[in-house]
């Protein structure tokens, strides 16, 4: 039997494994629930700003036999806040959210403050990763990055952003390039601190909003540059990209992205994704609605469906709701752990 880190690394590399890993990366793909906070005695929003609390809360889901990884931070506002957005850190129930933008137009990007990964909340994240890494062990540490379009839409009103991608392409490219540099620097910092895997989530960079033309012009090159930059410095690191929404119009574009795994939300058919992306590890996509409001049996059935579709890594389809019951989260891992690779399974049958 493989340990959790080895299994995840092999699944990301599409090497044979005994069974797929069951993970939830953290970041946008939240895995902190009320029951996990109660079980660990560590609560949000305090854990957003304290490296010791953040590191300990990041282990709660693994300790409770829900997921086979540590994941942090617990939101997607860290980079935006460091770049001048006003953030409300929320409560134990509500996630942190941007309440004030930093700029009014892409053309003002030069006004953004310099990004320093070592201070503020980025510094908290790096310190927390270092604490987890120092602890050692076989559970993989996943560090999270907010993707370029989502970060842009946290610094600037999204409707203005989407409009200016067309109306002011020169400045829009300069703005996104600037953000891409910072995201890459923060990712390198996370790997330096000891993260094993980086999950880069860009829910706003979806083909459903951008369409194929803007996706190809802005989103793909920015993601590719981050992935390449991370790879060049840390060739052994695993890289997961998560994008929300309908993606079938841009599947062919994703094949050349260069990440290890792609993660989609529950509206994407894994079977269809597999047809277009035969070489990429696929991660997903157990409905977070079912995880929050369904029964353990329902969650187990959805998990089995993902496995039968040939998913390489089982995970929730999106960020989990705060009220998701522990029993539902545990049903995912129990189902995956009991899974015997069968003939429907894309790759694990040969192991």
């Amino acid at each position, binding site marked *: 039997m493989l340990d959790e880190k080895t299994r995840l690394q092999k699944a990301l590399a599409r090497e044979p494994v005994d069974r797929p890993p069951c993970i939830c990366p953290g970041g946008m793909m939240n895995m902190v629930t009320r029951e996990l906070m109660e079980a660990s005695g560590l609560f949000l929003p305090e854990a957003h700003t304290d490296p010791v609390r953040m590191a300990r809360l990041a282990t709660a889901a693994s300790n409770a036999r829900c997921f086979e990884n540590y994941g942090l931070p617990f939101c997607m506002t860290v980079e935006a806040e460091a770049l001048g957005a006003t953030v409300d850190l929320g409560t134990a129930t509500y996630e942190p959210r941007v309440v004030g933008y930093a700029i009014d137009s892409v053309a003002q990007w030069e006004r953004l403050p310099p990004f320093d990964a070592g201070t503020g909340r980025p510094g908290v994240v790096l310190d927390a990763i270092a604490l987890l890494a120092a602890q050692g062990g076989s559970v993989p540490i996943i560090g999270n990055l907010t993707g370029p379009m989502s970060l842009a839409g946290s610094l600037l009103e*999204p409707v203005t952003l989407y409009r200016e991608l067309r109306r002011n392409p020169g400045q829009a490219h300069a703005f996104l390039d600037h953000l891409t540099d910072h995201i890459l620097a923060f990712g390198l910092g996370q790997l330096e601190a000891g993260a094993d895997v980086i999950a880069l989530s860009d829910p706003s960079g979806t083909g459903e909003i951008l*369409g194929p033309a803007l996706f190809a012009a802005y989103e793909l090159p920015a993601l590719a540059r981050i992935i390449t930059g991370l790879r060049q410095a840390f060739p052994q690191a695993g890289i997961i990209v998560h994008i929300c929404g309908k993606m079938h119009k841009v599947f062919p574009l994703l094949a050349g992205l260069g990440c290890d795994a792609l993660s989609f939300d529950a*509206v994407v058919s894994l079977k269809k994704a597999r047809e277009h992306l035969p070489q990429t590890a696929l991660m997903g996509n157990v409905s977070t609605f079912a995880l929050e409001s369904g029964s353990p049996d329902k969650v187990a059935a959805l998990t089995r469906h993902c496995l039968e579709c040939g998913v390489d890594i089982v995970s929730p389809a999106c960020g989990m709701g705060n009220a998701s019951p522990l029993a539902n989260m545990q049903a995912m891992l129990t189902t995956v752990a009991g899974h015997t690779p069968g003939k429907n399974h894309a790759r694990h049958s040969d192991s």
Partner: protein
Amino acid sequence: MNDKHGLLQHLSDCVVNMEDERVVDVSRAYVDAGHPALEGILEGLVDGMNRAGALYDEEEYFVSDLLLCSDAMYAGLAELKPHLPESEKRARKIRVVIGVVEGDTHDIGKNLVKIMLETAGFEMYDLGRDVPVEAFVAKAKEVGASLVCLSTLMTTTMTNMGRIVALLEKENMRDAVKVIIGGAPVSPAFAKKIGADAYADNAVSAVSVARQLLAAELGQMARDSRDA
């Protein structure tokens, strides 16, 4: 080409092609030629926005395209509206309150629904995002809304939708106010569960769902305006 039919087609095309500057020139040419503003709005600008909506439904257009089309529509509307006859400016429209529920700031979908409902002739009151439960009910009461549209993209915040329906019931407003919900985590089953009237799957279908729910009121208004 100053004939009415050609100009209407041109107005419509400006919206579909996202030409927010040219649409101003065409709108002025249309008014200068003495054509009626109402027809220019409905058969030019609104027609263009409906065509854009159909392209969105067919996945030829995407969210960002629809936003730019609406910019062109609103630019044209700003030119044509001052030329509407007084009776038309005063005409009563069905009032709709819309917003993203508290705890959530994802408002792209809500903005699209607002645009398409406005295009369909509803009078929109947009509360924005991260809107407390009570604010929806207070606004609906204040403006005499017939419809409340609730949006969220997060499972954590969808429970607030049920609270809004419950508060409308408590205030005895439920007979007069219909509720439509939308957003990635919600569904027709969830709408039923919380006692909302309907679920709308996207901005285009929100218009047909709203028309269906408000068919009686829309029919009555059509009869009133004919009699007036």
